[in-house]
């Protein structure tokens, strides 16, 4: 008697999840710029770091993950750039950086998304974006510990986190919570950056010491940054960029 074959109906997971690793397979390192607090300079650091690495001849991708308040495109100056379609979505090169953001599609319209909708939009973005060969993918995360950060941890397993804070006890309280969370899930932490330093303080260094993470140094408050937006050449000539270069040396 021959062997009896039984037929089964089985359920399948979200198909987008199966392709994300494939989309990221030629990305060598993923740096995620995070902070519990808003307004501490994540987007500026993420964009400037991307420009610095590009200038050094590295291939760089920049993903603006802030669906509610994207701003990397303003810093970079992306006028007229649009992704192209080729069996997926290919981010346009803006000043040599492969730059992806929902801003291409929604412009200045408000995008009122709730938690699961953010998660869906992020999963879709990761599933369709073809980064190709990239040395560094820099991800600019929104403030907080919501969907975007949790999904980065879940879906981009090779992520390394760059924590940004200002030397204010208000920012540090929230950043401490985020640091605890990242340590709890054993996410690799590149270190903590002290942004917008005006006066000498040891607050951030002490924070780093307390959590056993690397203090990557200060970025001095730069009053001239606003006039450098959409002008990468000018941005790279600032004191701010000089400080980001020093930090880059410590994490590469």
């Amino acid at each position, binding site marked *: 008697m021959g062997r009896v*074959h*039984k*037929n*089964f*109906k*089985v*359920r*399948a*997971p*979200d*198909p*987008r*999840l*199966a*392709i994300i690793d*494939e989309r990221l397979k030629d990305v060598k390192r993923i740096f995620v710029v995070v902070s519990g607090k808003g307004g501490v300079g994540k987007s500026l650091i993420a964009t400037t770091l991307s420009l610095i690495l590009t200038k050094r001849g590295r291939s760089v991708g920049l993903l603006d993950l802030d669906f509610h308040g994207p701003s990397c495109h303003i810093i970079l100056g992306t006028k007229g750039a649009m992704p192209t*379609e*080729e*069996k*997926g*979505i290919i981010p346009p090169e803006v000043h040599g950086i492969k730059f992806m953001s*929902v801003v291409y*599609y*929604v412009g200045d*319209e*408000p*995008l*009122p*998304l*709730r938690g699961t*909708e*953010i998660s*869906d*939009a992020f999963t*879709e*973005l990761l*599933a*369709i974006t*073809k980064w190709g060969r990239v040395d560094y993918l820099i991800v600019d995360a929104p403030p907080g510990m919501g969907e975007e950060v949790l999904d980065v941890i879940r879906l981009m397993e090779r992520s390394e986190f760059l924590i940004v804070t200002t030397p204010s006890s208000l920012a540090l309280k929230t950043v401490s919570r985020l640091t605890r969370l990242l340590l709890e899930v054993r996410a690799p932490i590149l270190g903590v950056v002290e942004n917008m330093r005006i006066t000498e303080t040891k607050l951030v260094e002490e924070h780093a010491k307390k959590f056993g993470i690397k203090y990557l140094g200060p970025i001095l408050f730069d009053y001239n940054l606003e006039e450098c937006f959409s002008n990468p050449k000018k941005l790279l000539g600032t004191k701010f960029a000089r400080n980001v270069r020093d930090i880059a040396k410590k994490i590469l």
Partner: protein
Amino acid sequence: MHEWALAEAVISTILNVAKEKGAKKIIKAEIKIGTLQQIEVDVLTFAFRELVKNTPLEKTEIKLKPEEVYFKCRVCGVRWNFSNATSALGREKSEAIHFIPDLVHAFIRCPRCGSPDFEVVGGRGIWVEYIKISK
């Protein structure tokens, strides 16, 4: 051609599940296509046909089934459908929704109370409803 990316994702999922379950043969897969994403079924079918070549899915029956999307307002509770909501959207906005369906929240509002806070009920994107395998 974005359909190609979706087809790749679906095929990887079916192959992964079949492997996990120790399938001898993958008999059938039913794929649901939400109308919100406005997937071009002809392009998707072509992509499937090309991508299954030389894979264990070559002889699998792949059935595509559309699923109508509805929106439900979280404020006043009214339900409305996609074609009513999007007939006035231009090409660019429709294309944005095609790539990332959740971006619909930037472009439409509740037809009764004008709220931007609504839910997408079913029919959002593409998913594998079930896979029939033999062991």
